[in-house]
């Protein structure tokens, strides 16, 4: 009897003692004292990291900012998992629940939802007064404004990663291709030619393109649409159908691995890394992986222009300041540090990602990386999908389901595009 009561009491004591552990609700700007007794402005900053190295890098950058900024701003950086985009959902939940950060890393595609709920701060006045504003080209600022649908500048660019094509020169040589494609037709021809049976067993062992049929693959389709004179606004035009058929034929003709309908980023990376595919469409973020894996046997070219035009999708990691932030000026100071300041330089040196600002271009890492030129060239034709109300649903759900059916021949290109049009534009 005594034993049981003692066990119960121990359990209760354990749980009550836990209440004191680790509790630190750092959700909004507050003022406190630094060791010198001076009032410090505290900012809560949430971010995601793509790998463990980036976790440490971000922490060291923030630490350096806290130690060097002369405005007595103290940023607390907290990492949250990317969770396939669930990161922004976590922030949304936290803010709606009365907590959340003052600023965070952000994706353009979430802009409209956050803006519609009045969660984002309009930073236009700070940007207008910023002396380094012109280092970031106008097209990028316009893209940021367009992302929220209210023409306010609430999402601030941090790193943009336009997509381009990585290829294996040794495979091109084997396939008899002498130079990188400069037109869309040459690109399609290269996909066909680099699909090879290298060991003569009658089976294809190198595929031309690591086609991304599932998550994220819609970004690649965009290049096809514009090359054939279509665009994201109307996916039911004859040009859009022609473009989509060209896209589908890559798989149907056997120029992409059998796994293409289910392939997202990881699968296409694995395919290219293992030598299964000759080309992959991706951005500067993976350049270090390829250089490390293949040495000199990897090169790149921008997604070429077709008869209708040239377009490539840009991946983005932005920064945003939330309306609940009480000291937006301090938040913008941190943003400056993260782009044209030392933080931006350090981040670029380690990850290869930035906005091509002066501090970045001046680094030896930029000059020595052969992919940076292709990335900068690609950024000229880069864009994002229109920020419709249903964009997130289109990306997360409709795209993969519909495209998979089209790739497997279960529905026609016309029908698939109609479904996508309806989903993307909420018709």
């Amino acid at each position, binding site marked *: *009897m005594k034993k049981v009561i003692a066990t119960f009491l121990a359990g209760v004591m354990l749980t009550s003692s836990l209440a004191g552990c*680790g509790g630190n609700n750092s959700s909004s700007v507050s003022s406190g004292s630094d060791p010198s007794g001076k009032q410090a402005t505290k900012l809560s900053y949430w971010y995601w990291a793509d*790998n463990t190295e980036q976790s440490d890098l971000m922490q060291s950058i923030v630490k350096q900012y806290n130690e060097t900024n002369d405005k007595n701003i103290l940023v607390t950086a907290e990492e949250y*998992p990317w969770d396939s985009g669930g990161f922004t959902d976590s922030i949304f*939940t936290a803010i709606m*629940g009365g907590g959340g950060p003052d600023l965070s890393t952000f994706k353009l595609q979430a802009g409209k939802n956050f803006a519609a709920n009045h969660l984002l701060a309009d930073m236009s006045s700070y940007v207008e007064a910023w002396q380094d504003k012109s280092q970031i080209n106008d097209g990028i600022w316009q893209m940021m404004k367009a992302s929220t649908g209210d023409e306010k500048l609430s999402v601030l660019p941090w790193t943009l990663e336009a997509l381009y094509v990585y290829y294996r020169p040794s495979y091109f040589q084997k396939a008899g291709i002498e130079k990188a494609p400069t037109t869309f037709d040459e690109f399609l021809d290269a996909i066909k030619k680099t699909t090879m049976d290298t060991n003569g067993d009658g089976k294809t062992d190198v595929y031309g393109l690591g086609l991304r049929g599932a998550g994220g693959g819609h970004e690649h389709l965009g290049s096809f649409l514009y090359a054939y004179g279509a665009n994201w606004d109307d996916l039911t035009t004859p040009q859009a159908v022609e473009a989509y058929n060209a896209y589908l034929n890559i798989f149907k003709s056997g120029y992409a691995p059998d796994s293409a309908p289910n392939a997202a*980023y990881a699968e296409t990376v694995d395919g290219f890394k*293992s030598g299964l595919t000759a080309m992959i469409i991706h951005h500067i973020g993976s350049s270090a992986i390829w250089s490390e894996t293949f040495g000199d046997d990897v090169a790149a070219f921008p997604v070429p222009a077709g008869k209708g035009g040239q377009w490539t999708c840009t991946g983005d990691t932005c920064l945003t300041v939330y309306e609940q932030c009480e000291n937006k000026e301090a938040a913008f100071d941190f943003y400056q540090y993260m782009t044209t300041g030392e933080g931006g330089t350090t981040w670029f040196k380690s990850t290869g990602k930035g906005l091509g600002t002066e501090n970045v271009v001046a680094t030896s890492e930029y000059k020595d990386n052969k992919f940076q030129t292709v990335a900068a060239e690609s950024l000229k034709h880069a864009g994002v999908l229109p920020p419709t109300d249903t964009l997130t649903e289109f990306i997360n759900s409709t795209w993969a389901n519909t495209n998979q059916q089209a790739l497997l021949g279960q529905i026609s290109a016309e029908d698939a595009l109609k479904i996508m049009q309806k989903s993307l534009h909420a018709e």
Partner: protein
Amino acid sequence: MKVKHHSAEAVKFTLTLVLPVLLFLIFLLFPFYWMFITSVKPDAEIYASPLLYWPQHWTWMTYEKLFGYFNFIKYMKNSLTVAVATMVVSLVFSTLAAYAFSRFEFKGRKFLMGLFLSNNMFPTVLLMIPLYSIMRSMNLLYTPTGLVLAYTTFTIPFSVWLIQGFIRDVPFSLEEAALIDGCNRTGAFVRIFLPILTPCLLAAGVYIFMQGWNEYTLSSMFTNPATRTIPVALNSLIGQLGVEWDMLCAGGTITVLPVCIMFFFAQKKLVSGLTAGAVKG
């Protein structure tokens, strides 16, 4: 003739039972095997084509990195604290509640039992914002206690139903005998009832522990880097640009071990506990 008969029996036994069970076991265990060998393969072999079903070069570097650089022990401690505390709190309250629901007739008993079930009808994501808000106002956000409280919202209702089903099968005459012999109600509950309840409590305890150990959604919201649990920590190895397969698999291998060990020691009582109360006469 007898030998022939025996060998035919053996073949039949092998074909109808041993072989299917073996195939099923391979199907069941292969993901764990693959997870383990991925964790001990060097990077080049993880991405090798064709696939390597057995590592050519074993490396334990990933585990060194996991416990050193990644500080996996911290996440294990956090998970263990939360899972054990959830188990203790849930079992104490569920047992008392289930006893009351089974042994006492009172107004609204059925309604309250139904109410317990209704909690599980809501998707967790729907509860996120209200729970976050409550945790924040109670200053429990980012504490293990907050997470324990959140978990008990769905472990207690399930456990109450599980335990009360078991209790209803235990004859009331046992307690009556204890009462006649001089026990008070508490004494009868502790001395007579709890020992009988052991298999059921074990089953409920293992279930609750696993919930606390594996849960992701609530943990991702109610913890910060200091109090993060294993599932959230492992998810941080899946970035936008790739997956750290070696670390993820090493972490996964370590994570399943406590659950496997628990099942190993508790399996007999677990089965009897889970099936008890399932059949009513």
